């Protein structure tokens, strides 16, 4: 059976039956030529902004691309004079009451109104009367995480539809009618759900901004890096927006297999685990009560000596390690010393999750109990959870984790070495800390709660002395094979 066809600006494309014109344009990857405010591929159709109108041959009026079903043989013009005039009209209407405060608006640079104004806008305003002003809502706390500036709103109601149909908290609604229509929150400035950050993401203008990012960075300085959120076992696709290897925010990246268009607020601010000023980024060796920064050479030599003294060594892998890291460590690390090495996994998040079978959804959308990204992946490598009651009698414990898994409450051995991402207070218990990489700084793959394995690339470079697993293993190898290894051979010292 042949698929139905639609023609956009002289080019013919196939589409699936049931598609709207906009959906067909998305399939053809030409949807960016159709401007929109109220349309969002993850939300129900509203058809109210009237910005996405296109000219359909044989139709008496302009049609909205978002709501008009595509039909076989339809001929659509997305850039005809009539269409551009209509869009210019909508832009003029939307700008009538818009404050035009782009220089102080945090959305500037990623604002649909701004972008479309360059393309369709009138450039000057013919509106001579006073603008509509919401004096109380010029900058208003909408919730604990969001700030509302009603004057900038274009009334697309994406936010309202998001709480109606996606997060299902039904907390946002429009009050009043017509030009006085105002967005209000039923929760009265309190938290209303765990997905509020998406509302700031989908707001096409600067009306709703996310407090955590507000005024932190002008968006045109940021580069969007594709990566995964490691905040829970869902493994949502995200953009990490960075400048000069500092990440300022996470944004949802569309992935229909996992997270659709959304991420949760907890994950959204989880970049702070890695961009944490308290994070240990130099090797530490404990002398007395405090860990003291030292070179990799020193910490590794000391640690290797401890391992050679030990009879039984515990290697505890946090379920936030990538599958590659875990496999490498399991295969290589035990060969560096004579002692028997037991390898276990450790999770401990979400009130004692250890196995993937302990994991469950916290709501119907994305959030999971298991707050580590790779429990399934480590289980697939054959690892078992660490059981403090059974697994005992270790002289040395090496604890590898990259920032998400918890630490066992009681010490697992007389000497404990922490390897990976720790903040200063967590590092207190360790005799030595080997600073490792977080998800942002390394490449690898995670297997999420649904068994889907996803790979990712490094988004930013490592900070300070944080070193990749492979480099540390290489250095250990050099140290373990030649007792009199020279300083130059241990290349890690300069990392």
């Amino acid at each position: 059976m042949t698929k139905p066809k639609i023609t956009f600006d002289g080019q013919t494309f196939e589409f699936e039956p049931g598609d709207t014109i906009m959906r067909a344009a998305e399939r053809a990857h030409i949807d960016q030529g159709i401007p929109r405010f109220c349309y969002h591929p993850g939300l129900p159709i509203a058809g109210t902004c009237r910005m996405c109108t296109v000219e359909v041959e044989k139709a008496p009026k302009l049609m909205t691309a978002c709501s008009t079903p595509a039909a076989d043989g339809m001929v659509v013009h997305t850039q005809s004079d009539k269409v551009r005039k209509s869009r210019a009209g909508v832009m003029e209407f939307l700008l009538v009451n818009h404050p035009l405060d782009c220089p102080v608006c945090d959305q500037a640079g990623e604002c649909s109104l701004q972008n479309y104004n360059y393309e369709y806008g009138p450039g000057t305003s013919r509106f001579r009367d006073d603008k509509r002003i919401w004096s109380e809502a010029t900058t208003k706390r909408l919730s604990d995480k969001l700030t509302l500036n009603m004057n900038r709103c274009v009334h697309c109601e994406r936010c309202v539809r998001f709480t109606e149909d996606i997060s299902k908290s039904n907390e946002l609604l429009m009050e009043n009618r017509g030009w006085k229509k105002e967005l209000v929150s039923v929760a009265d400035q309190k938290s209303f759900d765990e997905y509020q950050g998406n509302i700031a993401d989908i707001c096409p203008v600067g009306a709703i901004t996310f407090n955590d990012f507000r005024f932190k960075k002008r968006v045109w300085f940021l580069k969007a890096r594709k990566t995964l959120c490691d905040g829970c076992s869902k493994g949502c696709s995200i953009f990490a927006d960075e400048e000069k290897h500092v990440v300022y925010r996470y944004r949802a990246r569309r992935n229909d297999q996992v997270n659709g268009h959304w991420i949760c607020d907890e994950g959204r601010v989880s970049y702070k685990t890695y961009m944490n000023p308290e994070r240990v980024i130099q090797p530490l060796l404990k002398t007395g009560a405090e860990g003291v920064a030292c070179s990799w050479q020193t910490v590794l030599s000391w640690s290797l000596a401890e391992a050679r003294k030990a009879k039984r060594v515990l290697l505890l892998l946090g379920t936030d390690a990538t599958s590659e890291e875990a496999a490498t460590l399991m295969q290589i690390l035990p060969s560096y010393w004579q002692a028997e090495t037991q390898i276990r996994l450790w999770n401990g998040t979400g009130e004692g999750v250890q196995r993937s079978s302990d994991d469950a959804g916290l709501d119907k959308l994305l959030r999971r109990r298991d707050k580590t990204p790779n429990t399934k992946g480590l289980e697939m490598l054959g690892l078992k959870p660490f059981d403090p009651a059974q697994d005992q009698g270790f002289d040395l414990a090496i604890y590898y984790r990259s920032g998400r898994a918890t630490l066992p409450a009681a010490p697992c051995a007389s000497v404990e070495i922490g390897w990976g991402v720790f903040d200063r207070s967590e590092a207190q218990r360790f005799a030595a800390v080997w600073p490792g990489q977080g998800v942002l700084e390394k490449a690898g793959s995670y297997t999420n709660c649904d068994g889907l394995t996803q790979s990712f690339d490094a988004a930013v470079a490592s900070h300070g002395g944080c070193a990749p697993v492979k480099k540390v293993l290489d250095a250990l190898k050099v140290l373990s094979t030649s007792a009199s290894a020279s300083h130059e051979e241990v290349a890690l010292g300069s990392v």
Partner: protein
Amino acid sequence: MTKKLLTRYNNTPGSHTLAFYQSVNGYQALEKALAMTPDAVIDEVKKSNLRGRGGAGFPTGMKWSFMPKAPVDAEGKPKPKFLVCNADEGEPGTFKDRLLMTQHPHQLVEGMIIAGHAIGATRGYIYIRGEFVHETRRVEAAIEEARAAGFLGAKVMGKEWSFDLCVYRGAGAYICGEETALLNSLEGKRGEPRLKPPFPAQVGAFGMPTCVNNVETFCSVPTIIAGGAEAFASLGTERSGGTRLFCVSGHIEKPGVYELPINITLPELIAHCGGVLGGRKLKAVIPGGASAPMLRADEIEVAMDFDSLAKAGTMAGSGGVIIIDETACIVEVAARLLKFYEHESCGQCSQCREGSHWLARMFDRIERGGGTEDDLNMIAEICSNMAGQTICAFADAVTGPALSTIRKFRSEFEEHVRLGRCPCKHEGHAYPHSQIHHASARL
């Protein structure tokens, strides 16, 4: 004068009671209709050329025939069908449904039962605007009486068909007179028009196939069934049968609701109502409710049926005829009308929300003398960006008074611009309300 069909028993004491209604052959049309097949009833209404009295003038029989015969849901289970009566009567200048509901509620109930039989509905809703408290009570009382008499409920007149009516009060928004906004409001949602398609005949109230008609339309149905379609059709024009209720208001000697032939001419109508108030000179007429473009005094030689008025560039709308005499300032009239539309736009579509606001502000400024020649030239352009571009016809309705006044009475606008004040008012006239642009302030 002409034969009256709907308002024959106006001002008769007790005309709203079942006892009176039955004494004048009430509910006999229902009995006759129930003996007919639903399709036969629809055919009869089609033959009568009855056109919807709410404003659009869509043929009623045709609308009924669009209802699916045996709708099923996704699982193949049969879906109920609903009948909705639009008694929101929000169009400024219209007050006919109010009269029908206060004086002849049983006519409405009987009409709805016949319509319910024709489309196979199981339930009917009467959506009455919130301000109509007295009317609501009358209709509710009529429904009670009809139910007690067996015309409503589990077995309508002993037939194997159950049908009941339910009154729902709106909250007073003009837009809820638009049928899909009405359905949203009926469901408890914001009264905002829906995207079409799907049309209410496919997805209406609560997702079920729904037919929405005006009060006057339903009230005409018993007459059609009782007296025959031909008799009804013969009263009107070729394409529009029956009589029509005209609500005449403004500068007129005898304002009120008049049941007259649908093809009466406008001068005849004005003469029938006693002429222009105080014998003054006519300036303009709004022939079909506030949304209808104005007719100038020299354009009034026109019949009042749907097609003739459409040909004259305006519309018959809901039958609200507003007479404006020479003492009125057209700019002020237009500014007041636009203020109404600014207040009543639901605010979904960009053009309508911002455009109605912009036009209202501009007309107000022109009326106060702050307008410029540029403003006058811009009005047509703003209107062309609004009309026909939105979900419902509200934006078109806004452009009705705006465009017709600036086109037909441009000299008056220019006079305002030239003088810097309203020529109809003395210099230094104090306006009763100051303009507040804060959206959080009350209008």
